[in-house]
């Protein structure tokens, strides 16, 4: 495969050594993990950070006057600082810890959404959304008597920008879109989409679950009103993510859940709410998870992210060319601007069978609808197989994938 070598130096082997799960065998074969878009593996630093919290300074946060609570609170808030500066938010109060992108979007829909969207209004999304950026808006529209409008994409899986712009009307009260599609790998022109909405005074919500592990995120430069992240896709723990929101919105929004932590004073007559971010973090949070998330951000910031991007682009080009050379294989999602995802169909073989046979070769891929059934419907398929790449994958992994696909032909003839 004659593709250019990566321009910047990125030492993938030293990165791989930091991920203990990768150094295993599955069915007696070296493990090839090509399912990072579902969830990424964890580096030692993340695993250690979570363990260290439980071993050395675990306590509840923002509550105790004692030493351990103080230590845990500092570490938890330090993690917020790290996430805040990683995504270019000017103020750590704009970062709310949530369970993940799904909870982030649900939070916006049920607070900001209910304030802004009324009967006859519209919420605009795109044709390539994950279920988590469809269903919360559908629920909101149903409650409010509003309409969910979908901006279409072309056969390559790219947003049709003029069609998107045409759907930005005076009825549009929120625009919510995915930064990088999990099913297709498409990188949406987020800055242009946000600018077009902003010109018309429409607030924007960006689902950044798949973007954060691959692209540098700068919410200030993007100018979005909200941006959501999942820690586990960024090499951090599960059950933790972040929601960025402009402070003016967070101040004006009603709380999401009621409980401890999110209050100033409570009486049976009236409760005064805390300021953001505490206002949106009712109950004891995922303390160790947040600290692990902070360690994942440190891990990413310790890398030359431009070199990582060049490395991943090379890997994607190599994988694309290799898959396209397989007879009877069709790539689904061939956007010009694309990240880390190779969704494909093999003529006459269902994605589940592809997944099972590759699994027996030690190769983990996702097979299914990728929580994006409307995307599958668009292409008229029930499911695809998806190999998704991360910074720890190699050309050898792609070669193994291609050899595994050869096995599929052996079985199915």
């Amino acid at each position: 495969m004659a593709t250019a070598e990566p321009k910047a130096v990125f030492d993938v082997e030293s990165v791989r050594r930091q991920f203990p799960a990768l150094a295993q065998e599955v069915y007696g074969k070296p493990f090839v993990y090509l399912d990072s878009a579902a969830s990424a593996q964890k580096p030692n630093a993340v695993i250690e950070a979570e363990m260290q919290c439980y071993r050395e300074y675990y306590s509840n946060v923002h509550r105790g006057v004692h030493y351990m609570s103080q230590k845990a609170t500092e570490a938890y808030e330090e993690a917020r600082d790290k996430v805040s500066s990683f995504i270019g938010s000017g103020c750590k109060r704009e970062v709310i810890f949530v369970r993940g992108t799904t909870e982030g979007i649900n939070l916006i829909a049920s607070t900001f959404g209910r304030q802004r969207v009324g009967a006859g209004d519209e919420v605009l999304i795109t044709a390539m959304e994950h279920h988590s950026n469809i269903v919360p808006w559908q629920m909101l529209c149903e409650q409010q008597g509003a309409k969910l409008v979908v901006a279409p994409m072309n056969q390559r899986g790219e947003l049709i920008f003029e069609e998107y712009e045409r759907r930005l009307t005076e009825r549009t009260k929120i625009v919510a879109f995915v930064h990088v599609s999990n099913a297709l790998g498409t990188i949406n022109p987020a800055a242009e989409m946000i600018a077009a909405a902003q010109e018309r005074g429409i607030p924007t919500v960006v689902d950044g679950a798949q973007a954060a592990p691959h692209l540098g995120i700068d919410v200030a430069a993007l100018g979005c009103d909200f941006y959501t992240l999942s820690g586990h896709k960024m090499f951090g723990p599960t059950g933790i993510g972040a929601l960025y929101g402009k402070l003016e919105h967070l101040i004006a929004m009603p709380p999401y859940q009621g409980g401890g932590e999110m209050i100033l004073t409570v009486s049976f007559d009236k409760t005064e709410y805390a300021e953001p971010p505490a206002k949106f973090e009712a109950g004891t949070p995922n303390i160790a998870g947040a600290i692990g998330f902070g360690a994942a951000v440190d891990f990413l910031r310790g890398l030359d992210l431009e070199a990582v991007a060049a490395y991943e682009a090379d890997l994607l080009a190599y994988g694309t060319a290799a898959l396209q050379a397989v007879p009877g294989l069709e790539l689904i999602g061939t956007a010009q601007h694309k990240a880390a995802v190779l969704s494909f169909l093999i003529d006459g073989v269902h994605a589940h069978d592809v997944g099972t046979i590759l699994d027996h070769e030690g190769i983990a891929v996702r097979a299914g609808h990728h929580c994006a059934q409307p995307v599958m419907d668009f292409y008229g398929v029930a499911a695809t197989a998806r190999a998704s790449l991360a910074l720890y994958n190699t050309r050898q992994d792609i070669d193994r994938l291609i050899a595994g696909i050869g096995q599929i032909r052996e079985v199915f003839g």
Partner: protein
Amino acid sequence: MTVLTDLYQEVILDHNRAPRNFGPLDHPDRTANGHNPLCGDELRVYVALDGNTVTAIQFEGSGCAISKASASLMTEAVKGKSTAEVDTMFRAFHDLMTGDPSVREAAGPQLGKLAVFEGVREFPIRVKCATLAWHTLEAALHEDAKVASTE
């Protein structure tokens, strides 16, 4: 260690390539849709009955090799059987893949050709693929659900 050929036996591959009783049935007495939310696979089963006896059965839909072959082999196995016999076969089929060894041993002989699905038990995530058609048929026969689901 599990072996792939235990799962993809020749009979299964054959029924996947050339499913029997595939396509709609004219004037069915019962129909039901089956859905596996895990993968989005959908299946439709059509049944003609004479009293309690299955006289004709057809299926259509899309699915993996396991689900398609299972539906195909099921249609062959249940034709001419009473609904009570179908119920017994379904239980035996389910036991074959999920039961403990003694249950499996008892189930095997009742199933004839369907015993080729025994290998599926080594692939727990695929059990739902093999049972989707049966859940759908049960729904059609007993009309207890418009849409059968593996979940």
